C-alpha cells in the first residue's frame, strides 16, 4: 500500500517538474486586460489569505466532526 502511494507521489512530482518545459507562452495579438497590476500591488494576496483562512476553517470543522464520530463509533462497539 505504502509503496503504491510512494510511486504515485514520485510520478506526480516528476510530471510537475516537467511542466515548465511543456508550458509555452503564446503572445496574444491584442493586449487583453488582466488583473496584473492588482497582483503586482500585492492585493491579490489578501484575497488568497482570506480564502485560505476560510478553507482551513472548514477543514478544521470537518476534521473535528470526523474525530467526534470516531469517538461515538468506539463507544458503541
Amino acid at each position, binding site marked *: 500500500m505504502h509503496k503504491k502511494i510512494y510511486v504515485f507521489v514520485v510520478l506526480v512530482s516528476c510530471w510537475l517538474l516537467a511542466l515548465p518545459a511543456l508550458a509555452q507562452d503564446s503572445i496574444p495579438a491584442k493586449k487583453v*486586460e488582466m488583473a496584473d497590476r492588482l497582483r503586482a500591488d500585492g492585493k491579490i494576496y489578501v484575497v488568497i489569505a482570506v480564502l485560505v483562512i476560510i478553507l482551513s476553517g472548514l477543514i478544521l470543522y470537518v476534521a473535528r466532526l470526523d474525530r467526534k464520530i470516531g469517538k461515538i463509533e468506539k463507544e458503541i462497539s
Partner: protein
Amino acid sequence: MLRQKWWKIVCVAALLYTFIAGFLGPVPAKPILNETIRNLYFHVAMWFSMMIFFIVSVIYSIKYLRKPNPVFDIYALEYAKAGIVFGCLGVLTGSMWAGFAWGAFWSNDPKQLGAIIALLIYLAYLVLRNSMTDMDKRARIGAVYNIFAFAMLFPTIWIIPRMVESLHPGGLGGNPAFKDLDPRMEAVFWPGAVPGWCLLGVWITTLRIRLQLVVEKRILSNA
C-alpha cells in the same frame, strides 16, 4: 479506507494548492473571460466530483441488487446526496460566471438545462425513497431507480449539449475561448482542483455514512 488518514491529508494539500496556485498561477489572457478563466478550478471541478459521486453511487446500487446488504444502500444514498450537493453548487457557480461572461445569469443554454434536468431526476430519487416506509422495499426500488437516474445523466449532460449549439465549450460552434486548455492551467486543474474537491466530497460523505452506520447499530441494539 473509511477511517484512514492519508487521503484526507492529500485532500487538504490539493485544495491549498488549488487556492494558492489557482489565483497566483499564470493563465492565458483571453478577451471577455479575463481573470474569470480561473473559475475553471472551482466550477468545473464541481461537475467532475458530481460525476464521480454518481458513479460510486450507482456501483453500490448494483451491488445492493446483487446482494441485499443494507450497508450498500447507505453508501449509494449518501454518495447520491453528495453528487446532488456538488451539482447544485456547479449550477450556482456556473450561473454566477455566466452572468459576467455571457451577459445573463441564465440563458437556457442546453448544458444548463441538461444539468438541471439531471439534478431533478436525482432529487426524485430522494423523494421516491422517502415515499416508502418499508426498509427493504425502499432500498430495492431506490437502487433500481438510481440506475435509471445514472443512465439519464448520459443524454442530459453528455450527449445532447454536444449535439446542438451551446455557449459551453464542446457544443457545435462551441465557445472559442476554451478551444483547448492551457497546459499551465492543467497543472493546477488535474493534480489540484479535481482530486482536492473530489476528496473533500468523499470525506464529508464518509462521515455521513459512518453516522448512518452508528444510528443503524443503535436501532438494532435497542430493538
